[in-house]
C-alpha cells in the first residue's frame, strides 16, 4: 500500500507540474489547426529564431565540452594554488541569476565597458548582437560538462593511465584510447545537459540581445515576444518546437546510453 501511495504522489507531482503544462502547450498550439501553427512557424522571423537557437547550441556546446573536459582534468588531476578558486568559479553560473550574468556582460562588453569600447573601435559589436548572445549562452551552460566529468575522472583514478604509459602510449594516445572512453558517459550526459540549457536560456539573452525580432531573437525570446503581442498560436507553436528539440536531445541520450548494469 505504502509503495503504491508513494508512486501515486510521485506521478501526481510530475503530472501536475510537468506533464499537464507541456501537454497544454501542444494542445493550444494546434487549437486553431495545423495550418495556423505551420504558417506562424514558417514566417521569416520564426525561421531566423530557430536558426539562431541552433547557432547558440552549435557554438556553446562544443566549446563547453572541450573546456569542460580540460577543466575537469585540471581540477581532478592537478594540485596547484588557486585550485579551490577555480573550482568555485566553475559553479558561478549555477549560483548567479542569468539576468545578472547578462548585466555583467553588458558592463564589460557594452558601450562604456573597457573591453566593449576597444572592441567597438575595432568594429566588433558584442552587445545587442549574436556575438554577445553566444557569450551569454556559453556562460550559463558552462558548468555541466565539468560537473559531470569530474566525479567520473576521480572514480577511475590514474592507474589505467599509468598502465597505458608503461605500455608505450604517449599522453595524447593515453587520453584518446584510455581516458576518453572511460569518461564517455559523463561527457555524453554533460553534453545533453549543456544542450538543454543552451536551448532554453532566456534571462541572460533577454538582457544582452536587445530582442530585435528577426535579428537577435532566439526561440525562447520569440515565445515571449509572441505572447506579449497576443499571438498565442505563434507563442505556443514556438514553444512546441523548443520542447521537441529538448525531447530529441533527451531521446538521443537514452539511445546512446548502454543498458544499465552493463558496463
Amino acid at each position, binding site marked *: 500500500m505504502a509503495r503504491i501511495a508513494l508512486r501515486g504522489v510521485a506521478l501526481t507531482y510530475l503530472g501536475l507540474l510537468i506533464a499537464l503544462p507541456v501537454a497544454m502547450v501542444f494542445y493550444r498550439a494546434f487549437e486553431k489547426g495545423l495550418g495556423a501553427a505551420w504558417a506562424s512557424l514558417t514566417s521569416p522571423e520564426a525561421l531566423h529564431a530557430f536558426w539562431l537557437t541552433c547557432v547558440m547550441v552549435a557554438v556553446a556546446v562544443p566549446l563547453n565540452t572541450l573546456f569542460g573536459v580540460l577543466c575537469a582534468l585540471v581540477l581532478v588531476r592537478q594540485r596547484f594554488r588557486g585550485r579551490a578558486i577555480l573550482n568555485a568559479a566553475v559553479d558561478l553560473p549555477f549560483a548567479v541569476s542569468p539576468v545578472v550574468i547578462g548585466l555583467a556582460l553588458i558592463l564589460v562588453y557594452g558601450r562604456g565597458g573597457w573591453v566593449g569600447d576597444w572592441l567597438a573601435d575595432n568594429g566588433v559589436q558584442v552587445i545587442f548582437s549574436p556575438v554577445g548572445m553566444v557569450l551569454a549562452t556559453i556562460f550559463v551552460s558552462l558548468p555541466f560538462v565539468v560537473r559531470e566529468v569530474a566525479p567520473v575522472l576521480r572514480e577511475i583514478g590514474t592507474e589505467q593511465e599509468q598502465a597505458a604509459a608503461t605500455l*608505450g602510449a604517449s599522453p595524447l594516445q593515453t587520453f584518446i584510447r584510455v581516458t576518453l*572512453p572511460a569518461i564517455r558517459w559523463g561527457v555524453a550526459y554533460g553534453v545533453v545537459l549543456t544542450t538543454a540549457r543552451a536551448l532554453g536560456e532566456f534571462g541572460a539573452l533577454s538582457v544582452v540581445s536587445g530582442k530585435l525580432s528577426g535579428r537577435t531573437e532566439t526561440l525562447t525570446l520569440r515565445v515571449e515576444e509572441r505572447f506579449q503581442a497576443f499571438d498565442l498560436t505563434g507563442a505556443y507553436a514556438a514553444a512546441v518546437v523548443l520542447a521537441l528539440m529538448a525531447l530529441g536531445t533527451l531521446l538521443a541520450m537514452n539511445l546512446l546510453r548502454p543498458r544499465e548494469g552493463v*558496463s
Partner: protein
Amino acid sequence: MSISVEGVAKRFGEYTALEDVSLKVPSGSLTALLGPSGGGKSTLLRVIAGLEQPDAGRVVIAGEDATPKPARTRGVGFVFQHYAAFKHMTVRDNVAFGLTIRKRPKQEIVAKVDELLALVHLEGFAKRYPAQLSGGQRQRMALARALAVEPRVLLLDEPFGALDATVRKELRAWLRRLHDEVHVTTVFVTHDQEEAMEVAEQIVVLNEGRIEQVGAPRDLYERPANEFVMSFVGPVSRLGGEWVRPHDMEIQLDPVDRGIEGMIDRIIHLGFEVRVELTLHDGRPLWVQTTREQADELELGEGQIVWVRPGRTTSFDQRHEPRAAAP
C-alpha cells in the same frame, strides 16, 4: 636485463619514502622487495618504472641510464595491485594494447595475443570484458598485457595483494613457473614474507626508506643482519638479551642447563604445529612452537611449570634503534 639503482632518494613533502637506496638486480633474476607498508618498496618499484621521478640518484637498466626517460620508453612491464585493466576493452584488446600503440601488423598482433593468452591460461576469454573476469583472471590478463611488449624488466606491485588466500597461493606458484619459462628480469613488491620466500631468488628487505638487507631467502632467515630483518622474515621470541625462533626452543619438564623457568598459560593446537604460550619467571611472555608428538609425549598442560631451553639464538652487536621519523 639487469637493473641498477644508485643512491636513489625520494620525498613526498615531509615524508621520506626512500633514503639513499642502492641495489643491483641481476639479469634474469626474480627479486622480491619485502617490507612493511610505508617502507618505501612500492616507491622504489615506481622509480624503477619511471612512474615517479627520484629526487636524487639514478636508475640504470641494461647498462643504460634510464633516469631521464619517461615510463613509456623504458621498456618495462608494470603490473598493478588492482590490475588497472582497461575496463572498456575486451581481454584481447587489453593484451594487444602495447602492440596496437606500436602499430604492429594486425596478424602479428593476433598471433602474439593468442600466444600470451595461452601462456596465462585465458584462451577462452579473449572476447570477455574485465568486469566478467575473477580477480585472479584479471591479474593474469594484466600480466599478459605487460609481457606483450616484451619488456626488458617486469615489475609487479603487490600483484596478489587484492586476491583471496587460495588464489594468491596458486598464482605465486604459477608466477614462479612462468618466470622459469620466460626468464625476464622480474622485481615484485610484497609485504608477505612467506610470499617473498616462496617465489623469489633474491629478497631485498626495505624499511623506513632504507635497505636493511639483501640476500637469498635462506640467508635472510638464518643470517639476518639485524633485529628488524630477523623479526620481519619469520616469527621471533626474545629470551634474555637474545633473539630466538619459536621453533628453535625445547621444552623440558625438569630444570636443565641454560633452561629458563616458566608457566604454561595456553596450549594452542594448529594441526601439526602446537603453540605453547608461557609466562617466564621474570614475568615476560614467550611462545614456543613445538610438534603435536612432543606436546603429547611431555603431556603438557596449562598451568604447568616447565623449563625452556633455546637451541640457536642470535644476538646483534649494535642494538636496532627504531629510526626517528622525519621531522
